[in-house]
């Protein structure tokens, strides 16, 4: 019983981490219709920048802030300079963002080398909490808490505030929203950079659990892609449930049938797509 509780908490914390990355992808894909594969780089670079900052300042919080702000700036810059020009041209977006993914991944490999790096959790959370007869790292528990707070915050922001209303209006009908004096380009840039910020923060948050390694940007991007497809593009609820589902499947898969663990992630996605091509909570298209 305790083993299952521990497994469940592991899956939950991993799923929460995946959620933080997927939010940005689902928002840019579903709301802005921009395919941004560079999202994986935001995560990986966020992790590395967090690592450097923590090594210099010794503060985990500073690492989170630097990673988030730097990736927000990077996201804003790529959106304004590159993606904005190709808003209706998906193939161009794919090639552009993939090129940037290669470029940034290779630069990271050049700077931080080929060995995997991890971040030490903050002192306060370095211990473990007893659960039944077992110990569970308190860092992972804190991560679950933070993720849930972010999820609730985002939901309130998008569904219950005037700002969220503007975002949803800009997505549904950009021209009409513009006519109603919503600054659509600004709203879209804001959503884009928010997604990049969350991915950067997730990079540092994932440092003690997943760590940073070359190719980590691709791995996380693919998981996030599956989650976004599963949950339906543009749906926060879908991203949350999808991330938890993938977190559970991946955690069980890795320990029970490692040879087919990746297959186990993609199989339910294929199954759901057969039944609901728009994803669990996606709008019909």
């Amino acid at each position, binding site marked *: 019983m305790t083993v299952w509780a521990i497994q469940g908490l592991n899956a939950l914390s991993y799923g929460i981490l995946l959620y933080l990355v997927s939010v940005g992808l689902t928002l840019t894909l579903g709301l802005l219709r921009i395919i941004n594969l560079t999202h994986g780089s935001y995560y990986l670079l966020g992790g590395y920048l967090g690592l450097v900052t923590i090594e210099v300042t010794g503060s985990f919080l500073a690492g989170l802030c630097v990673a988030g702000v730097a990736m927000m700036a990077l996201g804003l810059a790529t959106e304004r300079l590159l993606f904005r020009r190709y808003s209706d041209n998906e193939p161009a977006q*794919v*090639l552009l963002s993939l*090129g940037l993914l290669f470029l940034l991944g*290779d630069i990271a490999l050049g700077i931080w080398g080929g060995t995997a790096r991890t971040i030490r959790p903050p002192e306060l959370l370095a211990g473990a909490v007893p659960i039944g007869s077992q110990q569970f790292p308190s860092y992972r528990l804190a991560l679950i808490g933070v993720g849930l707070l972010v999820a609730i915050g985002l939901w309130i922001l998008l569904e219950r505030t005037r700002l969220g209303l503007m975002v949803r209006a800009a997505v549904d009908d950009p021209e009409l929203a513009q006519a109603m004096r919503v600054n659509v380009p600004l709203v879209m840039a804001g959503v884009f950079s928010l997604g990049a910020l969350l991915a950067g923060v997730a990079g540092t948050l994932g440092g003690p659990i997943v760590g940073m390694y070359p190719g980590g940007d691709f791995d996380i991007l693919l998981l996030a892609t599956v989650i976004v497809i599963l949950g339906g593009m543009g749906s926060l609820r879908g991203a949350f449930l999808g991330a938890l589902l993938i977190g559970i499947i991946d955690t069980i898969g890795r320990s029970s049938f490692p040879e087919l663990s990746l*297959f186990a992630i*993609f199989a339910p996605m294929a199954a759901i797509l057969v039944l609901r091509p728009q994803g669990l909570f996606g709008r019909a298209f």
Partner: protein
Amino acid sequence: MLLVRWVFLLLLALLVVFGPTILPPYYVNLATRVLIFALFAMSLDLLLGYTGLWSFGHAAFFGFAAYGVGLFTLRVQNNVILAVLTSLTATLLLAALFGLLSLRARGVYFMMLTLALAQVVWGVAFKWRSFTGGDDGLPAIPRPDLSPLPLKAANSVDFYIFTAVIFIIAVSILFLITRSPFGASLEGIREHETRMIVLGYNVWLHRYLAHLFAALFAGVAGVLFAYHNGIVSPIDLSVVRSAEALLMVVLGGAGTLFGPVFGALVVELLKHFVSIYTERWLAILGLIYVITVLVAPNGIYEAIQRLFRFRVAPSSNLAPSDHRMRRWILLLRRR
């Protein structure tokens, strides 16, 4: 005039088959690689340029066929004909299944779906170590025995000639497909789906067939690749390969049959020479992606044309030109 054209084509074919054989063996191998990837890129262009389906997981079929040949040769028996037939049949079956799933979606969704489906295949090859060799791949796939032909596959010049002959046959078939009424209907679907439905075309079936053809030719390229390279690894199934093919098509010009050949030539040569001089060639490759989109979104040929004509280019990127649209309309009328 027709005779001149045929003589010209024949000479061109002979040049492709025998031209590079005078090069040093090292460059003969490079030329073999270029032809294999050119065929792969052309197969993707059938989907992307002609049918307007932006597949982002085309390497699934390329790598699946390559793995098929490798597994059959190493695990069952070293028989070329059986290995190739089994592998291509399996590739077609995979494509038949994937097509049923992915063709339910359009646009962005189609791209993400094809990507995810390709990742399933990649994931299996990468993790199922006991069967596929995991990330080490399948090493030491022997070159095939081409005994009825006067060619020895172990010899790089002979293998080049073999590849070139297959390449030319495949190109001819692709040419016939794109010039047929079927090819015209694909372009019609790309340009105006609703109109094609109204005209009574079974749009889904046409897309599905295009998908199968594209997968089959990607499979042929994969088979050649497995024999040429002697080792197949998960990277041949990965998004990196799919993206490379995408770049080749866009660089050469989507919707033209010979553009992707040119794109493959440029990308393979660049990759080759850049990787000699620097370890950071992935970064350079990334830059090439970005520069391609910024400078030559409709292919190099069009970019050069634009440069010399000083004409304002049409703003919609990656869109077909008017004369091509006129051509498919004419072809459809003729039916």
